[in-house]
């Protein structure tokens, strides 16, 4: 039997009420913690940085400002948009000695573009991502004279996802933006 309340004293909490309140507090705390975890995880893994090709100015900062020793930004090729040109201005220097794959004729400072003969007069151009430093020089050459099939993208198998992208802070074209991790690339489409 509970002790009778002394005169002038507030009603003490009964054991049943104490356990009930305790359970409520624990449930609310757990719910809050779960919400917090989900919210944090959603921000970190749900969104990633990417380059909008329509805003990229090919300034060279992607090659020099990434926190990685070799930038996570790479040139990618939109094959459906490529002209498979014999004289690819993304591959060849502005005034090549001849249209061969000799290093002195190439535009890329690291020879990261592979040129493969398809059939007269078509050549295929592919990017070796282990060599590409994301400088955008080929992107500029392709845009200037060609169809613009080369463009820069952050490769998410290399990006550290540190959430404070060092390149985004210095991008003069404000081309970096957050995109859903489920569709992490901003690809070029072919005009119909």
């Amino acid at each position, binding site marked *: 039997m509970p002790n009778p309340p002394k005169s002038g004293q507030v009603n003490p909490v009964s054991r049943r009420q104490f356990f009930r309140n305790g359970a409520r507090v624990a449930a609310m705390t757990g719910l809050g913690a779960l919400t917090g975890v989900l919210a944090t995880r959603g921000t970190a893994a749900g969104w990633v940085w990417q380059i909008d090709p*329509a*805003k*990229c*100015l*090919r*300034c*060279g*900062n992607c*090659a*020099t400002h990434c926190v990685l020793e070799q930038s996570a930004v790479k040139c990618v090729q939109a094959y459906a948009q490529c*002209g*498979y*040109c*014999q*004289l*690819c*201005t993304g591959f060849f220097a*502005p*005034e*090549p000695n001849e*249209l061969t794959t000799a290093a002195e004729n190439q*535009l890329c*400072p690291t020879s990261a573009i592979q040129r493969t003969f398809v059939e*007269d*007069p*078509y050549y295929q151009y592919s990017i070796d991502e282990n060599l590409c430093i994301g*400088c*955008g*020089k080929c992107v*500029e*050459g*392709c*845009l*200037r*004279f*060609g*169809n*613009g099939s080369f463009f820069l993208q952050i490769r998410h198998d290399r990006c550290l996802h540190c959430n404070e992208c060092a390149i985004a802070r*210095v991008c*003069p074209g404000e081309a970096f933006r957050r995109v859903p991790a489920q569709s992490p690339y901003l690809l070029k489409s072919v*005009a119909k």
Partner: protein
Amino acid sequence: MKPEFKLLDRREFVNFVSRSAALLGLAKVGSESATAATTSAEQTSTNAFAYDVSRLQKTDPKLIAYEEVTRWRSPRTSVRQIAIGPGDQVHVCAGHYISVFNPQGQPAAEVALTGPADSLAVASDGTIYAGLRDHVEVFDAKGQRQAVWAAPDRKSWLTGLAVGKQDVFAADSGKRVIWHFDLAGKLLGRVGEKNASQNAPGFIVPSPFLQVAIHADGLLRVNNIGRHQVEAYTFAGEFEGAWGRITTAIDGFCGCCNPIGFALLPDGRFVTAEKGLPRVKIYNHVGEFESVVAGAESFPENARACNGLNDCAHGGLDVGVDGQGRIYILDLVTSEVRVMKPRA
């Protein structure tokens, strides 16, 4: 006697400290802003990987053989092609219209189309042929619609027209072929498809600028832009020859696809127009480089258009020639028409 120092009360001390802190904070913010501005300016002005073609954008003055007579701006934007009709009337297709000017640039007439035109030809009797993406619209000299011809294929993209005494030829960038019609629009044949029996190498068309013209020698001329050549064909489709070489040098054609436009002088020589490096040049009747009409430095806005955010698919120039041999240059970026004549 030693000077006596006045002690600060608490209110004065707090005031002093807060002012100092505010000043220090302001100085730090200013310093960071200046540093950031400097860094940003340095980053944008110095690009170790810059693509520099400035040398190619300058033309040797000794090569320039033409001078400008006049110029005017088309009242309509989205200009695509220019053609010179009888009486040296200048026709420009711009969006949903064909604008007609007299040789001095005064507007003379305007013809409305059902859609944007990419190509244009004017017959010797003044009949106007406008090539839209999937059909040809025919107008008489007064601008009255006479006929509409559907393109022969659903993938057609008509980008060039040429009209002779009995024939009309339509260059199709979508199907990479030249369609041969009679004056009533009946399809007679196709020219230029890859065909070993006719020695035809096939058209390479990375961007929609395939054009066709009828030369005074009775052969067709087509700009095979992906091969950087001008090719000759009979009306029956036999390949007869080609000229042009791939190079960034002034005597050739560079980029993915050039020359994007061409016209024929009364004596049979060729006037070519390019994109990327927007320039207009003269080649003799066998395709040997002769001179420059206007170099890339004459079209700074056009050159910049290919240096912006988009590719160069809608930059470049087109050309026409009148009966006196004057050259009309249409700037696809600024919508300007420039009239050029040989230097005295």
